[in-house]
């Protein structure tokens, strides 16, 4: 029943201006990809992006930190947008997420492909996990070493979703604009 109510929520993202480097050590940046909520409002597995963003932000906030959402339009690579988000984040920690749902936690002094935690199998990440990802990102931001969020593993995710994920990615490339700066996003749920 609770789920039925949640499905009514829609996510509205509007640009506030070019994202600046943060100074507040109590913030975590959530890097979103070019087509996030534009191309689709749900992941490959049909989880609503509104719910995902709300859960991640709640996870961050329950540790007493604040979330900033930044959209990267010039690059679709998750490792890259995650790392660049971390560099904009006052705490040096970010969460990166693509439209299809693939997510990671990144830190500013790492390299793109070496992150703190990676959740590569997008269709397996449930809302509870997205909240835990938010919480862990906040804990890293506080300088703690949390137990990593358990990684789900389903050998049948690739057979079912990989070709579809490639199609989505190709479609999402239509939202790419190489000359556009990362934008600070205003988030509201209606």
């Amino acid at each position: 029943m609770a789920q039925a109510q949640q499905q009514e929520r829609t996510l509205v993202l509007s640009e506030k201006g070019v994202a600046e480097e943060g100074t507040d050590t109590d913030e975590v940046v959530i890097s979103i990809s070019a087509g996030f909520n534009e191309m689709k409002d749900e992941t490959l597995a049909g989880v609503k992006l509104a719910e995902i963003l709300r859960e991640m932000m709640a996870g961050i906030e329950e540790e007493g930190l604040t979330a900033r959402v930044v959209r990267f339009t010039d690059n679709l690579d998750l490792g890259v947008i995650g790392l660049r988000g971390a560099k904009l984040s006052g705490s040096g920690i970010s969460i990166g997420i693509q439209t299809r749902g693939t997510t990671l936690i990144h830190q500013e002094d790492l390299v793109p492909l070496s992150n703190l935690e990676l959740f590569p199998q997008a269709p397996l990440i449930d809302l509870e996990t997205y909240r835990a990802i938010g919480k862990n990102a906040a804990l890293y931001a506080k300088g703690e070493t949390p137990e990593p969020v358990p990684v789900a593993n389903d050998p049948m995710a690739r057979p079912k979703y990989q070709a579809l994920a490639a199609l989505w990615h190709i479609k999402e490339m239509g939202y790419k604009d190489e000359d556009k700066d990362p934008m600070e996003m205003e988030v509201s749920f209606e």
Partner: protein
Amino acid sequence: MCMTDDDKPVADGSGELEETAPKRSKRFEALDERAVTEDGFVNEWPEVGFVAMESPNDPDPSITVEDGKIVEMDGKDREEFDFIDRFIADYAINVDKAEEAMATDSEQVARDLVDINVPREDIVELTTAMTPAKLSAVVNHLDTAEIIMAMKKMRTRQTPGNQCHVTSVEDNVAQIAADAAEAALRGFYEIENTVGVARMAPLTALAQQIGAQCGRGGVITQCAVEEATELELGMRGMTGYAETVSVYGTEDVFKDGDDTPWSKAFLASGYASRGLKMRYTSGAGSELNMGQAEGKSMLYLESRCILVTKGCGVQGLQNGGISCIAIPTSVPAGVKEVAAENLITMMADLEVASGNDQTFTHSDKRRTARMMPQFLAGTDFIFSGYSAVPNYDNMFAGSTFDSYDFDEYNIMQRDLQVEGGTKPVDEDTVLEYRERAAKAVQSVFEELGFPPISDEEVEAAVYANGSKDMPERSTAEDIKAAEEMMEEGLNGAEIVKILADNGFEEIAENLLGILKGRVAGDYIQTSGIFQGDGDFDVVSAVNDPNDYQGPGTGHRLEGEDWEEKKQVRFAVDPEDI
């Protein structure tokens, strides 16, 4: 209930609402329940490269050589070359032979590939002087049975082999050590690990190395993680080879990874300078996965990857779809294409670890059919990742064959009298080796002051099928130890000493053998492996070249190896009745 034209409900006499759903065939309903309907299939979309072979956008083969330099290739002048074209033209193609090779009719070369009267070395002379478009054009003439025949002749090392994955969803070190020992016993020449949490890699690599050297001295191990970490683990002797150095068929994908063919070559030289075996990884679908396939076919782009590898001077390549396998297999002729890319790798005179790696289907029949070309022909590594653990523990997100298939895979080798690179083992021996491996890791952890591995964990690891049978262990604590291990510069020689001091002399000897192998450097020759009997004799394309030329030649499964393969642990012995 029916409606009349003026929307007034009238009785239809049945007293029930009429079902509006169309009546369905029970046959089709039953077919809808089959596993294969869960797989992703996509119709071809050549404009973006969603096509396995022969895209209308693939270039026609061509070459112009002036003063020993390639000035035009596959329809592009040198000024128009992207960095991949330039790298291939300058480093991958034997210019002396290029004009002759390119002038030879593609269909004739294809016929020579399956002609037992034409020796491998004659073909390699030409195929190492061909452009990517030419290599694809040649292989496009073959059907799947012909690709199998060609692979049988063209692979570089005569003795086929196999590689496996040993991973744990919990990154549990005792379990990994025990599974690596068992995998080595089962006959794999190479064992590959990766992690759930990146920072665990030093510990899982260490556990895997100890386990492998417990199982059979000379089985080499790798840990697939971020490239700099992977190299460092190798340099320290925690691993014995590397494989996950990726190359791509379009410039954009290279650039997205902040890489060029030159930077990959530099990384490769890092391994070579330390005497470490390494191969590259590519495979159909990776460019498309990034949306950067430029409308070219998967096979043409893969031909470029193969020649980038060749140009880097790297001895071998892992391909055949690999981590993007469900992309080629979603389109027509995708499974044929992955066999074709294995073949082109062999034609470039490189070692091939031929895929049959990550999962691509829910169907047991499709996954078995997919591996038949490599299995029947034999390749350097038929699987470049047979999961030696249950797929739920496979951190490459599952392999097409896993530990549940051990008996079936052995029996397929027995049925067809084919060397598939694994062998039957008995339960008592497996338990004995698993225990020794887990205890060795327990001792090493204790000596190093790492989070203790309890006797309960050792016991669980000995008897475990997978991580679900293991007690809880703190990953956060292990990560601290892993960080400490990297900071303090722990290396393989120190592990050898600890093992020897704690009653594990044989494992210590074997690990020392691996470290010495790097000094000798013989196993970095093309298709090099250690025999795996503790003597550290190298078998490679140099001392075991493939001389297949039809019946009576090449590798045959016979003698002791065949006798061993005949064993089925639940077979009936006529003498018992």
